[in-house]
């Protein structure tokens, strides 16, 4: 019966990546900004431009979460989701965001640091390695899905 439904691999990947980015961004905001308070709403050395890019990035993260939710729900409603690609896309999105946050937000734009301590390099290294690890697992899942070996495809 599932032959009648067209599985949409690309759309499933897009929805899963959007959700991964959105969830990771929300976790970052909740855990590191609000619960641990390692950095603040605004750092005192932020420039107007840095804050503008911060506002734009924050909005894009929120919109990705919302759009990813809407798209994924719709694909499931219509039965067009592609099994095997959801977890892969989700982890690639999470890892991609973590690495982007660690390199672009923290280093290039200088919005804030992971933590305001002396041995910052250890924190940076852990942050970016966590991102790479998530990306690696996501890539491994993606290869399994492409070969039709993913658990949800059996």
């Amino acid at each position, binding site marked *: *019966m599932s032959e*009648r*439904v*067209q599985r*949409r691999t690309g*759309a499933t990947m897009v929805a899963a990546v959007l959700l991964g980015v959105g969830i990771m961004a929300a976790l970052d905001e909740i855990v590191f900004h609000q619960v641990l308070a390692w950095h603040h*709403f*605004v750092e*005192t050395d*932020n420039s*107007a431009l840095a*804050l*503008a890019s*911060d*506002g*734009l990035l*924050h*909005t*894009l993260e*929120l*919109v990705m*979460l*919302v*759009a990813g*939710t*809407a*798209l994924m*729900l*719709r*694909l499931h*409603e*219509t*039965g*067009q989701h592609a099994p095997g690609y959801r977890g892969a896309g989700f982890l690639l999105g999470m890892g991609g965001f973590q690495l982007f946050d660690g390199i672009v937000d923290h280093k290039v734009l200088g919005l804030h640091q992971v933590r305001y301590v002396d041995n910052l390099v250890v924190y940076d290294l852990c942050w970016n390695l966590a991102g790479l690890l998530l990306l690696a697992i996501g890539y491994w899942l993606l290869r399994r899905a492409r070969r039709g070996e993913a658990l949800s495809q059996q």
Partner: protein
Amino acid sequence: MNGFTLVFATLAALYAWGWWRSKRLGRGWPLWRLLLFVGSALAIVVVMSPPSMHWAHDDFRGHMAVHLVAGMIAPLGLVMAAPVSLALKSVPAQWGRRWVGFVSLPPIRVLSHPVTAALLNTGGMMVLYLTDLYAAMRHSPGFALWLHWHFIIAGCLFNWAIAGPDPAPRRPSLEWRFGVLVLSMAAHAMLSKWMYRFHFPASVPLDQVRQGAELMFYAGELPEALLAYLLARQWVRSRYREAAAVPGPRGSSSCP
């Protein structure tokens, strides 16, 4: 009784009358929409009542809370209750054509374009907080009253232009509306961070500005995210059709 109470109590009563009439004629109209409309109108009446207005006048956090309800949350509810659709069900058919004729008029189409609505809404806030207008407003009751109406109407216009369920011919494409919404949300987030960092409006004590700006950033996100979700839902619904997934009797429908 102030003007806000008069206008919004009347609108809520009219909506309730339309809902009841629709139900009696067997055409039906969802109860959640009635509750949404009446609840939103009530929220405006409450935040525009004298005690709340005094708080908003004396304290920037109060001002921000009032703005949040009257300019963002209540307009979302009013628009999503589809009042025009209900009204058009309750009046003779030629009124529907008149409505379409009215919203097709060039000035109305310009005014209800997402870009205009965003400029009036978020742009209006930028002008209010980044210039001396906020201080001027606190010393002029007439101007303050006008600004409150401005933010209620601009909020409704914005929600209507972005994802309103009411009929409007030749709306800009979903991509356009989504883009305008994202930029407007980003401008809102940037503005609150600037206010926090650079102390705007300058006439307000810094600790009030900071708490007000944080309220604007975090609480303002809820109605914005909801609006973005509603628009995204319209978008994916139009792109991914239900028909393909309905497992009807074998051979009764063809697969595209």
